[in-house]
């Protein structure tokens, strides 16, 4: 092998590994975050360009195919990059979580593809440890691929509801053991020279397992699941990096593997659920029959009346949810809030850890509308203040403000920390209809005595509220 190209490749990978870690470090603070992704991007560019130098060191067996392979590689790289660039630029901010899931699944698929090529390379001599690592990486990567695709489809509304059968956990467990068993068969009985059919069955089973594992998980838990699959893909990439003896893949993969695991635990903690609880318990499976009758009736209020009420309040807290973002009402909301603050009303935003579709998603959406940071408060920091608030406004949120999480032990969301909006003197809930939240649970907040419902599209309601306050000012 020619040494010179290999030296350049190694140096590039070293640079890439450094730039990834340095970039992630910069991304962990709001001030430097923007430059962090650029730094990591440079690392990716350097590593990808350097990987073309593999051309100078290919196996003898691959020499006759080299021209074809180079064309294939350039085509795949170009098509994949352009498609993802285009789709990433086009996607709405609200749809960001499912896009992350989709790209993550692609990474898992790529790791699985590397493993597949390795297992099908009949000419190669395999030793046991790399072979085990290959199989494990293949299994994790495949599960991440099919699982992420299901998560994407669920969040994107392409699959609605959850899909469960009796004894599903037993079926999943059996399928997992079967897949693992076949993997061990490939390692220890076939020594990595299994027939392509056996390898194909192995990958097929792993993919099916990913689907079955994700299907029963409810939409509200999807952020945790995506984060988990993100960590999975990282691990798979790290393992396949070991198989290919590629330190850049090993380091980047393992850094993401551990960072993703920690992120998953943080998210699960924010929802007061353990990760195993998310994956194995059938969230919301208790259904309607276990929920007690809810007393009281829903009262409707006009947007204008609510707005005037807020204008003369001294303290108003907004609890925005995903519905706000869907209606694209962030900008109008902030316009309304500016009217209130100009009139001397103290306004704060209360963000539930899982508001939106991922932790921090709502912060991103509010930042997009230009809401300054010092108005936005986390759940722990603001929950005590609802008692002193004259008005709490819930916009497009549901499960994150459901008091049943505090009191009703039979409720599927029992134990999840919620925003204590019900403790405010007056609660307005801006909502399109009388439907249930993402978890499929009825919300007794809507029936409380101090709650009034403002029905309508969040954006239209905000416009009506702005007009009402402006008319009031104009009348003076």
């Amino acid at each position, binding site marked *: 092998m020619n*040494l010179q190209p290999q030296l350049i490749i190694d140096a590039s990978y070293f640079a890439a590994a450094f730039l990834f*870690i340095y*970039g*992630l470090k910069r*991304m*962990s603070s709001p001030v430097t975050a923007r430059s962090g992704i*650029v730094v*990591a991007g440079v690392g990716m560019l350097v590593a990808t360009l350097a990987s*073309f130098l*593999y051309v100078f060191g*290919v196996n003898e067996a*691959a020499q006759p*195919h080299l021209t074809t*392979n180079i064309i*294939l590689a350039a085509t*795949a*790289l*170009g098509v*994949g990059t352009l*498609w993802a*660039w285009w789709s*990433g630029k086009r996607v709405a901010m609200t749809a*960001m979580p499912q*896009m992350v899931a989709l*790209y*993550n699944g692609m*990474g898992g698929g*790529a790791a699985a*593809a590397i493993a*597949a*090529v*390795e297992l*099908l*390379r009949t000419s190669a001599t395999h030793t046991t440890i790399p072979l085990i690592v290959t199989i494990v990486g293949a299994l994790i990567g495949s599960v991440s691929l099919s699982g992420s695709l299901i998560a994407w489809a669920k969040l994107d509304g392409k699959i609605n509801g959850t899909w469960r059968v009796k004894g599903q956990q037993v079926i999943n467990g059996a399928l997992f053991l079967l897949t693992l068993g076949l993997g061990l068969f490939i390692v220890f009985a076939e020594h990595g020279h299994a027939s392509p059919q056996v390898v194909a069955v192995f990958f097929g089973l792993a993919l099916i397992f990913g689907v079955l594992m994700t299907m029963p998980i409810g939409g509200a838990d999807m952020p945790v699941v995506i984060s988990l699959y*993100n960590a999975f893909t*990282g691990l798979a*990439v790290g393992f396949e990096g070991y198989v*290919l*003896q590629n*330190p*850049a*893949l*090993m380091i980047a*993969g*393992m*850094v*993401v593997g*551990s*960072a*993703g695991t*920690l*992120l998953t635990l943080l998210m699960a903690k924010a929802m007061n659920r353990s990760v195993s609880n998310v994956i194995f318990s059938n969230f919301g499976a208790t259904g309607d029959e276990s929920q007690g009758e809810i007393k009281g009736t829903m009262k409707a209020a006009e947007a204008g009346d609510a707005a005037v009420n807020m204008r003369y309040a001294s303290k108003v807290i907004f609890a925005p949810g995903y519905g706000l973002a869907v209606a694209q009402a962030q900008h109008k909301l902030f316009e309304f809030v500016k009217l209130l603050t100009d009139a001397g009303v103290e306004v704060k935003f209360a963000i539930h850890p899982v508001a939106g579709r*991922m*932790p*921090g*998603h709502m912060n*991103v959406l509010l930042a*997009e509308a230009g809401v*300054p*940071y010092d108005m936005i408060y986390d759940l722990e920091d603001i929950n005590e203040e609802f008692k002193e608030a004259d008005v709490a406004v819930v916009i497009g949120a549901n499960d994150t403000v459901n008091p049943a999480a505090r009191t009703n032990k039979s409720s599927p969301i029992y134990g999840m920390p919620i925003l204590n909006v019900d403790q405010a003197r007056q609660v307005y809930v801006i909502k399109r209809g009388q439907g249930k939240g993402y978890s499929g649970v009825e919300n007794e907040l809507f029936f409380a005595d101090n709650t009034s419902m403002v029905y309508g599209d969040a954006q239209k309601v905000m416009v009506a509220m702005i007009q009402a306050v402006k008319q009031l000012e104009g009348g003076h």
Partner: protein
Amino acid sequence: MDLTTTLTGFVALYIFMLAAFTGYEIIGRVPAILHTPLMSGSNFVHGIVVVGAMYALLNATSTVEQVIGFIGVLLGAGNAAGGYVVTERMLEMFKPSDKKSDNAKK
């Protein structure tokens, strides 16, 4: 594989261990507002898998290997490029609030 570096046995374990701690330390003290961008950012970083897929494809000897390698590079490139664009778009919003000076420069 006759690369100049061999990362077997304990050397590989050391790399994995140190990398795992690095990832843990980086995420450990992050404010909640950055969880989504960081998930997306780490999603971008494992897009480096495209490099491994490139190696597999360039060394492919049969049609099956070429097809799978092609898919691998395609998916890996999508992971890297998509992860970058989405993360960058999210972090773009974390600019400091004095937008006026920014516009003035342009």
